[in-house]
């Protein structure tokens, strides 16, 4: 099932070049994809992976080079032609209509929903058949708005399969998935290649690349710098190829915890949407300690994060900061009491897309540090932004660039800088490295460990167990709003935490609910 028949590539990219102004996003990139093969396209943020796939799918027009599918050259800039030729793309950000059902979404675009020739029963039967063949459990009649992220991704993949895609392009498919969902996705992909499909898998997570691909293509600064058969390479080699230098993850030394800086005593909060709130949670975040919070997404992490961020108050129970009970509580008060916050969604909550880097850099401190009597001091703000660009290694054209033009990693570095600049006592890091490449991940982790060593209490919320296990001095698991006991570093194996994540081991709730 690996590419034993190189004479007939299903897909061939030849000398693709794409420039955006002065930036060359793709520089003469060529590769073949064979039937039944999984190619992993590996590269840091901004290496040109997504641009390349957008050209392949006809969303961008290449300045030079051709795309061949099954031996025929695709007309440039025509997604319809790519679809008809059998290329299916699953984007990083889903393109589904939440108010429609699964089967309607799958049909949408291929057929008119109001066409008389549309036979829902046949459509649904075919979807059921496909979901069985590829091991993807989805109810065709479910409303997409009610599905979990993992289920939505299955709908996207089904949509491509429904249109008889022979080549699947998956752009960072695991960025939004829990470990369990990732395993399920991989089972589906293995089934797909067994049935003769070919896959291009875009990622920067090395263990996934090693697990699923047969060949790895590494892009750096728009160039194809290396091609390896997966069984002949290693994570270390790929990481080095990707970054262009040896990468070493920051070393996390054991710490000596101090006094509790933030404590919750039997705190209960309201739920958020369909996710539960906190249920009588008691926890101490201690100085000089990273507390890891593991758990499947949607089990109360958002409630805890909002509470610490200053967005909500407990319904009952008590929150103390440095021993002082918290009465009134707003985001500005949280910042004032030394709580630095890295929000889960850096696009929606962490930054304002059309504001400049400078404006985003001072979003939390404009009133206290960059204004006098209501007048902004833009000169000081700009100087501050320039300083942050240097200190936190933010790659950008300058402080006046709109933040939406930055890569996710650089955006996160800005948010990190905004948080650490104020010397916070407590750092809330909610999914701080989701969707980042390895260089940025190591950078963020290193900085968080540094903040801990300076005496901050760090709360790390993550769905990535590896991340939790590597960084945390003490681990809690959250499930349905309840908190497990504290497990010190090294006392738990991933499987044990998995048990707690699945909700086993908790005592029955103390109060009737």
């Amino acid at each position, binding site marked *: 099932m690996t590419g034993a028949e190189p004479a007939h590539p299903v897909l061939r990219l030849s000398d693709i070049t794409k420039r*955006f*102004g002065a930036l060359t996003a793709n520089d003469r990139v060529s590769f073949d994809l064979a039937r039944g093969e999984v190619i992993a396209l590996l590269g840091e943020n901004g290496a040109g992976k997504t641009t390349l796939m957008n050209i392949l799918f006809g*969303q961008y027009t290449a300045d030079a080079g051709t795309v061949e599918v099954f031996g025929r050259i695709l007309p440039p*800039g*025509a*997604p*319809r032609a790519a679809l008809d030729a059998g290329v299916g793309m699953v984007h990083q950000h889903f393109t589904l209509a939440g108010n429609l059902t699964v089967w309607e979404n799958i049909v949408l675009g291929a057929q008119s929903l109001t066409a008389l020739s549309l036979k829902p029963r046949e459509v649904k039967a075919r979807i059921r058949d496909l979901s069985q063949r590829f091991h993807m459990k989805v109810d065709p009649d479910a409303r997409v708005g009610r599905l979990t992220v993992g289920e939505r991704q299955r709908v996207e993949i089904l949509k491509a399969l429904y249109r008889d895609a022979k080549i699947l392009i998956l752009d960072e498919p695991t960025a939004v998935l829990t470990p369990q969902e990732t395993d399920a996705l991989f089972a589906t992909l293995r089934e797909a290649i067994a049935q003769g499909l070919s896959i291009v898998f875009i990622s920067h997570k090395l263990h996934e690349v090693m697990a699923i691909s047969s060949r790895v293509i590494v892009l750096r600064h728009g160039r194809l710098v290396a091609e390896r058969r997966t069984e002949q390479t290693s994570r270390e080699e790929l990481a080095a190829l990707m970054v262009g230098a040896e990468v070493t993850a920051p070393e996390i030394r054991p710490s000596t915890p101090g006094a509790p800086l933030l404590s919750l005593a039997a705190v209960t909060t309201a739920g958020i949407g369909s996710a539960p709130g906190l249920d009588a949670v008691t926890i101490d975040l201690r100085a000089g300690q990273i507390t890891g919070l593991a758990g499947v997404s949607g089990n109360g992490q958002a409630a805890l994060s909002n509470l610490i*961020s*200053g*967005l909500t108050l407990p319904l009952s129970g008590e929150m103390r900061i440095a021993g002082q009970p918290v009465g009134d509580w*707003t*985001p*500005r008060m*949280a*910042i004032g009491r030394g709580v630095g*916050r890295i*929000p889960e969604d850096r696009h*929606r*909550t*962490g*930054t*304002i*897309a*059309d*504001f400049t880097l400078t*404006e985003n850099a001072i*979003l*939390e401190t*404009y*009133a206290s540090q960059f*204004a006098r009597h*209501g*007048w*902004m001091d*833009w000169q000081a703000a700009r100087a501050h932004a320039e300083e942050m660009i240097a200190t936190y290694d933010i790659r950008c054209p300058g402080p006046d660039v709109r933040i939406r*033009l930055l890569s996710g990693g650089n955006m996160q570095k800005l948010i990190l800088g905004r948080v650490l600049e104020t010397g916070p006592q407590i750092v809330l890091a909610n999914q701080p490295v989701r969707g980042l490449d390895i260089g940025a991940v190591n950078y963020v982790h290193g900085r968080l460990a540094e903040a801990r060593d300076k005496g901050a209490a760090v709360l790390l919320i993550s769905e990535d167990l590896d991340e939790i296990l590597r960084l945390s001095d003490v681990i809690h698991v959250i499930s349905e709003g309840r908190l497990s006991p504290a497990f010190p570093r090294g006392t738990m194996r991933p499987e044990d935490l998995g048990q707690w994540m699945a909700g086993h081991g908790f005592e029955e709730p103390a109060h009737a609910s």
Partner: protein
Amino acid sequence: MRLEPIANPTLPRRTLPPALALIATFAVAALLVMIAGGNPADVFGLIFKGAFGSKFALLETLNRATPLIFTGLAIAVAFRAKLWNIGAEAQLYAGAVVTVVLGTGALPLPAPILLPLIAVAAMAAGALVLFIPALMKTRFGVDEVVTTLLFNFIFLLFVSYLLEGPLKDPMGMGWPKSARLVPEARLPRIIEGLRLHWGFGLALISAAVIWVIDAKTTLGFEMRAVGQNAEAARFAGIPVTKVILKTAVLSGGLAALAGFSEVAGLKGSLTLDLSPGYGYTGIVVAMLALLHPAGVVVAALFVAAIFVGADSMSRAAGVPSYIADIMLATALLLMVLAILLTKFRVRRD
């Protein structure tokens, strides 16, 4: 067809579509003029002459632009913070009512004290009129588009009641009309002998003040942040509710100045036809101006010129002056499209 966002629009990309929109507006108007039996070149010439052709025409245009600058600014300020104020008409009348209540002899004060006092009181009234829907929006999530729009009708009926009742001019021969302002409450002319009052000067000053607030103050920063991403603003500690309420006060106050300026500068008394929809036309002005205060001045002059010019053209050429409304509507629709085209590229699949 698909829209593809453009990351860094070039200068032609940002300026060409709006320019084409204006040209297309005149093309559509030309077509209609021909259907009405006129000669487009003559008609546009007459409109231009009617708006700028003489000292009188020019001053008339500036006078007509004055209330539009105020309401345009009011809408621009509110829309930038995503507060959808459709009620500038009611806020305008609130300012006018206060002007009449305080300016018809109730306060025996000299003009330099009386005029600022009335202006501030008028602003406060307009602010209050928008503050209530804004409070309902922030407290209970009531849609301000509905409340501010409906409040226009309520307030106009209230003014009608006032003019038939408590504010009715006893010397008015039974017409629904207020008493005339005392001379101390009248806005003086900018240059003696020319029919242009200080309301226009106040409008230009207001535009400059809004520009400064936008660019230089924390309030401007907060209003932009709340407008662009309220969730991120709230997370960052910006007091979103307070900012929305402050925006409402500013916007309502600006719209009320239109009423103050019309009564104290131009009409001298209040009637039910004080505003031929300046509150609504302000929306057009603000949109044409891309919500920028300097743009509001330019757009208000453009709109006023078309109205004033069309009036005089209609008398000379016999083409109905409704052509002005059509030109405005076309300009607005095409401009909205043009703005889209400055940010997106249309691609055919």
